[in-house]
């Protein structure tokens, strides 16, 4: 318990450091750091309606990030969430197209299922290559992101092209209203329910099942788990599939919900933000929920800044980047400086 609190505190301190660094950057760039930060806080949480907006961004991010956490815990650095997110949304879009005309209670579940299957498949082949022949999953999943991005371009300007769309950004035909699970505001009972269900199921899986415990042991020491008789490929492939499926699910939610269509290059930072969230939360499901809300707030602030405060939305990128910097630089030195209690490592 104490260890957990310490950990959360430590992550918080990193975020605070990151904000200090950002302020420096803002000042150097000629903005008043305090203005930027108060506007970010306004945009994210304080202004009326901000919380709903932040939640809109936080929920899909949470779902993807939980999945990322599952594979990281098992010791596999699946950084292909972005690609799995895209492939999931593409599959869902195809299914919606094929089933067009069927009742919503058929189409929506079919889309959700297809999206998860698509995302899972996009994680399956890197997982298979990793486990079968040791191919570095960081490289294959990263490659998978580019492939999925191009696939999305092809699909939205080919088979699913919206002929009436403007030339600006190729996109699929808009989804019939009956099949949408939320309005463009992006918040609905269905989406909240899916996120809560995912959260509970994953919390149970990770903390309360044989699989969760063995996978996290295997992530720390696969040799020992192998000597206990575990089939590592089973744990590994399951982790890859789960993380892919959840990213695919998030892609499907964006498609069925707020976006109502898929467009080439939409939400290009989703997967990477999710990885960042998982890292900040140290792969704990509850921590991921809180962290996702924070990053959801930043995402909604990014939209608010240029419109309401006349500040560049790139400010949010700077904040994200510096948090990423500090989280990855959780070096021995910083740890030592921040050590609370003196006996954790």
């Amino acid at each position, binding site marked *: 318990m104490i*260890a957990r609190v310490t950990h959360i505190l430590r992550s918080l301190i990193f975020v605070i450091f990151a904000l200090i660094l950002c302020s420096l950057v803002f000042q150097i760039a000629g903005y008043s750091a305090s203005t930027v930060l108060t506007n970010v806080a306004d945009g994210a949480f304080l202004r009326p309606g901000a919380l709903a907006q932040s939640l809109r961004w936080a929920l899909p991010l949470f779902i993807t990030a939980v999945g990322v956490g599952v594979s990281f815990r098992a010791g596999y650095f699946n950084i292909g969430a972005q690609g799995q997110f895209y492939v999931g949304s593409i599959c869902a879009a195809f299914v919606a197209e094929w089933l067009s005309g069927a009742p919503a209670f058929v189409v929506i579940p079919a889309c959700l299922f297809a999206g998860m299957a698509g995302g899972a498949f996009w994680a399956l082949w890197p997982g298979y290559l990793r486990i079968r022949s040791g191919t570095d999953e960081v490289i294959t999943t990263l490659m998978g992101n580019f492939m999925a991005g191009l696939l999305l371009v092809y699909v939205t300007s080919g088979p699913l092209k919206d002929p009436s769309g403007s030339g600006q950004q190729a996109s699929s035909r808009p989804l019939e209203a009956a099949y949408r699970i939320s309005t463009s505001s992006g918040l609905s009972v269905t989406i909240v329910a899916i996120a809560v269900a995912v959260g509970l199921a994953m919390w149970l899986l990770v903390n309360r099942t*044989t699989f969760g415990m063995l996978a996290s042991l295997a992530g720390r*020491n696969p*040799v020992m788990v192998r000597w*206990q*008789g575990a089939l590592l490929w089973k744990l590994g492939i*399951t982790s890859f599939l789960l993380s892919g499926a959840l990213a695919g699910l998030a892609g499907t939610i964006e498609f069925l919900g707020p976006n109502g269509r898929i467009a080439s290059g939409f939400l290009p930072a989703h997967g990477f933000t999710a990885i960042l969230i998982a890292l900040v939360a140290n792969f704990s499901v509850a921590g991921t929920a809180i962290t996702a809300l924070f990053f959801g707030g930043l995402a909604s602030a990014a939209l608010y800044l240029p419109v309401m405060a006349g500040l560049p939305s790139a400010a949010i990128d700077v904040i994200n980047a510096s948090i990423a910097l500090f989280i990855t630089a959780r070096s021995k030195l910083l740890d030592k400086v921040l050590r609370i209690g003196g006996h954790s490592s």
Partner: protein
Amino acid sequence: MTDPHAPALVCQNVSVTYGPVTALEAVSTAFDAGLIHAVVGQNGAGKTTFARVASGLVRPSGGHVAINGHVMRGGNVSAARAAGVELVHQSFALPPSFTVAEAMEFGATGAGRFFTRSSLFARWRPHLESLDISVDLGARIRDLPVETQQGIEIARALVTQAKVLILDEPTAVLSPSGIEKLFERVRRLKAQGVTVLLILHKIREVLAIADTVTVLRAGRLVEGPLMTTDVDGERLSRLIIGDASRGLAAVDAQALTGAGTVEHGPTDAKPVTAAPVLKLSSITTFGDPEGPALQDVDFEVRPGEIVGIAGVEGNGQRTLVRLIADFAKASRGGVYLGGHDINTQPLAQRRSKGLRIIPFERNTEGLSLSSSLWENWTARALLEKPLLRLVNPALLRSECDAALKAWGVRYDNVAQKAGALSGGNAQKVILSREIDRDAKLIIAAQPTRGLDIGATAFVWDALRQARDRGCGIILISSDLDELFDISDRVNVMLAGRIVGTFTAPYDMNAVGAAMIGAS
């Protein structure tokens, strides 16, 4: 010039705490220069902690260390090095991905300098050869057997002109001949004026090599340094484990203290006639990365017997364990567990039939050091369940707590990382996991390596009790006294074959001869 009789290393009221754990408490002692000093004590007594303080790795929370009369600012490795103290770790600390030459260079200078592969080779080959360590300088540390890794650690420590060399349980990973070689090396160092501190568990080794002995118990200094000429094995074992030594069976005490050669086998052995729990029939394996392939091995273990495997390390003992654990594959012959052909069965299935393994490599194969104790402990039970079965961590934690208490593990709480335990305590965690009621065949690979004499006797008792419950046990050990003390018979392995079978009363010379193929 410092006074030659001045102590090389002085500890003044040294205390160390790790969070709630007191590892050392007000230890004051002094080690004379130019002698070989043994430091002994039970698992968790604080020996490693002491070594770390002396070498500047740990800053004492109280007191100080003085080297050759200079008081050291605690917790400063480079200062301790500059003063001439070098430590060879219990669990090795060489970077596993380095080559031998890189590890030597890195360890010696610690700084980044430009170098070429060949210049490194040229620099370090003579040094390693002068210490009798034959190794490919381009090999990666992680691919080397532990014996060689230790050799390199020692070589690294001896690069600088070490005045005080501390070796933390150096004999634990060595074969008897390796130990002889190490002792030779240590004596040569003494002749050169180096003060050597050896952390040891085996009383026989203490009496064989050390000039003085210092005993720690539960973080406190019990006595010492005492001249080894003034103590005998029995007194020393009493100092180490306190009153518990009275509970030792006379035969065990003899095996533990090395008072005379053990020849007896188990005293109450009766011939076992039940069908074998394990049977290997003319097994030949494919080549194995961890040792020679097995050649035509016929081997049986019956319920209720302990079969010892003697042999110089690297003669197929690991392959044997790996075969039974489904890591090495048989090219010919059959493996039967409880009468079933298990040759094609995965390890999980073999384990569900009662196979238990105490593996050679405690820190990698046996435990996940960065995971909590209770996770490590429950791994075996978890693997018998389907992957999606719900578990109750609170219950598992309390079960683990009870089991570890019953095994006398010294730990703080079950959420602690396994890596925070002392070496011997870590081994007890493995034992408590693998020796359970459902075990039918227990493979114990070096189960008492690094254990204190109390814990060693404890393990022997546990193995005997498992035998009496009807378990078949394979005991692989490089300690002949241990094998002779508790095995019902002893097989000798050489180059992947079983070259001899001996029963009590054991003939040390005959077994020794078989081990090197001189019979």
